[in-house]
Every structure is written in C-alpha cells, then in structure tokens.
C-alpha cells in the first residue's frame, strides 16, 4: 500500500498535478480513514455458498435521476438497468462466463448466412398481471424500439433488424439487413426487455414483466421498491423476499450508507477510498474488469491528425502504466489502442502491447516531417472522473517526446454535443459492449454515428462486414485479429485504459463466488442472483 502510495505521489510529482489538489485529496482520504478506523463491531461473517431464501437487499446506487422513466428506451444508467433487470426478462441472458444463454427464448437457430434468426419461446411463462407470454408480446416489445419516430437508446443496437414477426404463438423471427453471427447476444441488451402487448404496442407504463420481482413502487431519482414474484418461472434465482434501490448521487453519501449499515451494496466506489474500505472487515470490494474504456480520440480527417505518423507519435508518447496507477488506482487494465479488452473472447493475444517510448514518438514525428508538435487537447470530466487529470499527466509524458499538449478544460455540460467529435483532440469513454462486432460497428465503422475519430479505413470496413456474417469461428477470429491490429496501428483513437467497475457489498449478502464479466453488479443482475448470507 505504502509502495503504491509512493508511486502515486511520484506520478503526481512527475505530472505537475496541482499540489493543492493532491493535498486536498490526501486530506479527504485521511478524514475518511479516521472515520473508518473508528469502526463497527467486528463480526466474523462466514460466507455461505448455498443460497438462502428471504431477506431484503438494499442498494445505494449512483446513476439514478429524477428524469428516469419506466420506458425501456429511456434507460440510460445503472439505477434503471439494475432495477428493471429484476422486473423483466430478455430473450437471452449473459451468463457469468460471458456467453449468451436462453432466458425467455428456450432456444434459437439462424439461417446459414446468419440473416434470419428464429427464437422459440419458453412455455408457461406468465407476466405479473397473469397474462401468458406469447410471440405477440415479444414482437411488440422489440418494435417499441424500432421505427423512424423511435427515440429509444436501443435503436442503434437493433440497426440491423429489417423486420420482426411472430411465427405462431411460440416463436419470433428476426430478419436482418445483413448477417450477424452475434445476434443472440444483441437481444440480451438490457433495453430489450419483454413487456406485455396492449393495443398494438408494448405496455411499458404498467411496469409489468416476467421477472423475479414485481415493481411495488418507483419514484424516479429517489427509490424503487421490489417484492418477489411468488410464481417466478426461473429455478434457483430470486432469493431475496424484497429489494430496495436508493438513488444516492453523492459518492461520500454512498460510502457512509454502506459503512453505517443502511444499505448492503453500493456501486461506483470512489477509487480514492477503496483502500480504506478494504480495511473494514465487514465489507467486500467487488471489481468487475469490464470492457469500459477511456479514449483520446483524434479526428483522422482533421488537418492536424490526418498523417498517421502524428497519431502514432502520440500513441507512443503516453505512459499507460502511470495512468492506470494514478487515475484508476490500479483498478483497470492498460489498453493497446483498440477497443477489445484483455481477457475478452475476441482479443488478439498475439498483438504486441504498445509501451511508452518517447524516442519512437520522436521518430514518427520526423517521419511526419516535423521536429516538434503542438496540439490542443480539449478535456472534460464529462468523459470520466479524472479525464482532466489524465490529460495533464499525458501532457507531461508527451513533453519527453517533444510534443507540447495544451490541455483545455471544457465544461461537462454539453461536452458530448458541442466538443466531442467536433474538435480534433478530445477525451471520451465507452461502456461495455458485449461483442467485438458491436464495438467496432458503433465506434470505428465508416459513417457510424459515433465514429469518434471520423476514421475511414477500407480494409477495416470490409473485414467488419465480412466478419459479421461469418459463422466459422476461427475464420472470424482471424478477421477480428487483423481489425485490432488496424485500429492499433492506423486508427485515430488512443486507448490507454480499460476501467474496472468497482462496487462494494456488506458481508450480509453473498453470491456464488463468480460474477458476470460484463456490466457492473454481476451483469446488472445481482437482485436475482445474490442472496443473504
């Protein structure tokens, strides 16, 4: 710990992070350390591996807003994701090993070109209002997100879907514009919950689902109350008798609520205090090494960055290890300038990790015909907490390579509408994406709405299309390997860090020992997967 602290102090020294800020953080940390050392009575809570029924699960979650609604198309943060994941089910579910397994669909098959997908529904599943699930409900629920007038957050996820129709009462057929071998993963998206059909549309207002818990009350931005549905169809799930979600926006308030025992689980633990929380014997830190990553996008069609040598110079001028230690306090993994996270089933493990190499950076600058470089980096903490600090660290590291980065702090308000993808060099982040195809399609394909570097690489785009419909797994992996190399060596984004989601739970609640690799809090499904100890 002290070693780690020294490293951080050193890093801040090297980076010239304002000393006042550093002192401020240290003081806060000391105050909180004091708070914890005062301590609670020390009980030895033994973890039990077998689920126990009953009890209440109380969560204090960041990411709840008074503007939240019951409409699945509007869900945009953890609070609604987690709460409604307990109320509803999706066609497929992502298991703790990261693969898609049947949920409301009992099985699925696709045409050889992966263009037509047929999902056969599970029999005897009922909604909380007593209605039996049939194909009409699924079609209405999916169509809720489609169409020109849709404002759904899942509209782009379903961009491939040409039409969706019922086949009898028990099967649903999706016809795609082009083949997508990962489509079973697409329908596991937390927005694509199955609601009962009503008057030709999906009835989202009622809050009635097929999930393990009924919606008892929902006050946006304040709380959600759930109670176990007595006739849940899924065996071995939904152990708690009820669940209570509290929206707690303030990080210190979340930690206080957990430490004083008013909630059992919190998410987004302030990384500055994790080390202190770890000392509390009643608490467990839950780290999910996910696909969430931070980027510095450079617009490849801007005058400044159109030369790939300039982009490569900057990619070599950043010290990823230092950033990991000082911005994420070690809670994450370093990136290799492509968006596939280490440990993913899609990762190109043969690709060499790029390191901090100022000499090489200078070499690329000379290749570009310049001796030194001056660029403006428009940074904002809207991208992620610590984005401005990371930018300042980057500035100091790049100086060694003769690159002068002028860090401009932009207001968080409106950053993504007014600065990101409009200015040549900015800060950005990406949430988890279940599949390589989705990540590449939304962030790197030519013309994609969020192609944040305006990248247009013919070979990459060709591979992307070919891989999407390729059902031969080894062949597909080869294509993904090449695409990762292309991103790394020719792309416009510097991807220095993959950030873990860090949550904390009290030993009053337990889980099976392994949690899902995608999405925080056991793939957002802790309510139905965890139990009281």
């Amino acid at each position: 710990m002290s070693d780690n602290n020294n490293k951080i102090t050193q890093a801040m020294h090297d980076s010239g992070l304002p000393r006042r800020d550093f002192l401020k953080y240290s003081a806060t940390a000391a105050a909180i350390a004091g708070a914890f050392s005062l301590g609670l009575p020390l009980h030895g809570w033994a973890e039990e591996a077998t689920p126990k029924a009953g009890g209440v699960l109380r969560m204090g979650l960041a990411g709840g807003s008074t503007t939240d609604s019951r409409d699945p198309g509007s869900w945009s943060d953890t609070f609604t994701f987690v709460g409604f994941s307990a109320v509803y089910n999706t066609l497929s579910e992502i298991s703790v090993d990261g693969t898609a397994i049947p949920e409301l669909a009992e099985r699925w098959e696709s045409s050889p070109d992966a263009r037509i997908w047929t999902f056969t529904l599970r029999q005897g599943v009922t909604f909380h209002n007593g209605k039996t699930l049939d194909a009409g409900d699924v079609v209405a629920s999916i169509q809720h997100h489609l169409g020109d007038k849709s404002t759904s957050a899942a509209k782009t996820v379903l961009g491939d879907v040409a039409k969706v129709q019922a086949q009898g009462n028990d099967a649903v057929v999706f016809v795609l514009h082009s083949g997508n071998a990962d489509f079973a993963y697409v329908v596991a998206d937390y927005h694509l919950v199955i609601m009962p059909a009503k008057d030709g549309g999906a009835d989202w207002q009622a809050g009635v689902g097929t999930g393990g818990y009924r919606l008892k009350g929902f006050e946006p931005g304040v709380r959600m109350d759930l109670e176990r549905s007595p006739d849940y169809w899924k065996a071995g799930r939904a152990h708690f008798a009820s669940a209570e979600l509290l929206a707690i926006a303030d990080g210190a308030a979340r930690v206080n609520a957990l430490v004083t025992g008013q909630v059992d689980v919190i998410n987004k633990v302030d990384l500055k205090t994790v080390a202190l929380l770890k000392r509390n014997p009643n608490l467990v830190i839950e780290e999910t090494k996910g696909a969430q990553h931070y980027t510095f996008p450079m617009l490849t069609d801007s005058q400044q960055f159109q030369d790939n040598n300039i982009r490569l110079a900057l990619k070599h001028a950043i010290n990823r290890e230092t950033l990991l230690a000082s911005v994420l306090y070690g809670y994450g993994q370093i990136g290799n300038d492509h968006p596939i996270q280490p440990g993913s089933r899609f990762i190109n493990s043969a690709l060499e990790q790029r390191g901090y190499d100022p000499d090489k950076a200078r070499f690329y600058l000379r290749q570009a015909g310049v001796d030194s470089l001056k660029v403006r980096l428009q940074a904002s903490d809207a991208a992620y907490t610590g984005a401005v600090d990371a930018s300042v660290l980057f500035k100091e590291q790049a100086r060694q390579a003769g690159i002068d980065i002028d860090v401009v702090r932009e207001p968080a308000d409106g950053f993504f509408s007014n600065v990101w993808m409009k200015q040549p060099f900015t800060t950005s982040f990406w949430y988890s994406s279940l599949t390589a195809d989705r990540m590449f399609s939304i962030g790197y394909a030519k013309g994609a709405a969020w192609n944040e570097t305006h990248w247009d690489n013919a070979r990459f785009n060709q591979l992307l299309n070919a891989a999407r419909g390729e059902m031969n797994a080894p062949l597909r992996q080869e294509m993904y390997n090449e695409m990762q190399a292309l991103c790394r060596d020719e792309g416009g984004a510097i991807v220095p860090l993959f950030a873990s989601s860090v949550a904390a739970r009290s030993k009053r609640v337990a889980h099976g020992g392994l949690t899902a690799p995608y999405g925080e809090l056991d793939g957002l499904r802790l309510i139905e997967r965890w139990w009281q100890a």
Partner: protein
Amino acid sequence: MNSLCKLLLQRLALGLLSLFAVSVIIFLAVGMLPGDVAQAMLGQAATPETVAAFRAQLGLDLPPLTRFGHWAWQLLHGDLGLSLANQRPIAELIGARLGNTFTLALLAALVSVPAALLLGMLAALYRNSWFDRLLNTSALSAVSFPEFFVAYILILVFAVKLNWLPSISNLAPGASFAEVLERSLLPVLTLSLVVIAQMMRMTRAALINLLASPYIEMARLKGISQARIIFHHALPNALAPIINVVALNLAYLVVGVVVVEVVFVYPGLGQLLVDSVAKRDIPVVQACSLIFAATYILLNTTADVLSIASNPRLMHPKG
C-alpha cells in the same frame, strides 16, 4: 387596519408580477444554456435523427414564444404540464418532494427559531460575559463552515462513530412520523446550525440597543423584574428587525438546501431542480422556480405585514 389590507393586496399584486418576470427570465436563461433536453437526455448517444425525433415528439421544434405562451396558458388553467424528460405530470413529480422540503424546513424552523431567539436574549442579557463570547464564537464558526462540511462532521460523529442516527434520509413511503423524525434529524441539525447564527445575533443586537435606552433604565429603577423588562418592554420593540431576519432564513430553509439534500440523500425539491436544469427540462425548472419565488414573496410580505402590525406608529399613522 385598512391600510394593512391595502398594503397586503398591493404586495400580492406585485408578487404576481414578480412571478411572471421570474418565469420569463428562467425560460430565457435555460434557453441560453448549450444543448436542449433531447441532447441532454441522449448524451453521448445522441444521433442527429434520434435528436430530431425527440424534439418533434416534445414540440421543441416550435418557436420559443409559442412554447412559452402554451405553457403560460396551461398554467393559468392550473396545469403545470408534463415533464419533458419522462412525460410524468409535473404536479405529481413535485407533490411528494414539495411536502418533504416543507417538512424539512418546518422541522428546522421549529428547532432553530426558538433556539436563536432564546440564545439571542440570553446573549443580550449577559452581554460581554464569557457566555456571550462563547455563544457568538460558536455561532459564527458554525455559519462560516460550508454546509456540507458541517453535515459530514455530524455524520462522522452521530452516524459513523456513535451509530445513533442514519447517515442518509431514507424516507420510505408509509414511514411513520417517528421514523421521518429520526431520519431527518441530521439534516435538520445541519440546517439549524447554519441559520441560527444570523437570527441570534440580530436578536442580540436589537435587544442590546433597546436595553440601553432611557425607558428601560426607568423600568429597572422602578424595580421591575428582568423577565418582564425583556418580554414586556424590550422585545415588542425589537420585533421588526427580528421578524425580517427570521423570514429571510425561513425562505433560505426552503430554497437553499440543495447541498444538504445531496449529502443526506433527502428527496426534496432542490435535487429535482438541479436534475431538471442538467437535463434542460424547462417546464419542471419553471414550476420549481415559481414555487421558490412564491415562497420568497410570501415570506417577505408576511414579514413586512408583521413588522407593521408590531409597530403602533406604523399601524396608526397620524394624518
């Protein structure tokens, strides 16, 4: 009495005018912020087509004057409209939170006003003693710290260390009054510490001023008891400035408690206002602002009326 009624009506009419002005200013101010509700709701995920669909759905593509007119017309019919962000009726959105905010303000007022008046009187009576100095120093210290600091110190002591009180105000629906009281105690205490100082010092200053005047001297010479001098002779004449300060602080308890709400996760109106500004949800911002403005106007009017009522020279002007 007639003059009082006239004043009251005048003030209320002026108040309505102020409310109108406030709503126009808020509408223009929120309009000047970068982005709109469609972009704010969709965030990083905003594609031009989705944003356009969103705007059309909410009628944001109409000219500002039309939107304002429509909103004002609805308001005159007693309809606050729907939230742009989640389509819920604003009256429903505000209802419970307004109750929470007023409960918190009321509880804080019940603690802080009597405490401030009593302490102010004691400080005036024993002025320049060690008691007076101690009171002044601690009151000024409490008011000088930022609210969140006071709040965190209270949490540290009463929630983390002693474990007597909850660190967050989890106001579950159907909670009993005792539960509400227990869960609101720390925020109430924080707010009280913040507002007591000003009221106490004003009471002290007003009383000291009076206690030095000749008629109090006369009363003392006549041998009237200390309590009677304070309550019967001094206090009524000191009421006007005290009432004004109390009204100002009460208004603050309703409109200025966002930070305390955040720290204690208290579901009040302030948090709703902040969220709505962040999401550019203009109708909700308008509704909250109107409530806040109305609170200010009503409390100030009440203070003026009471000051006049407590002063016979103003109540019965000659000629």
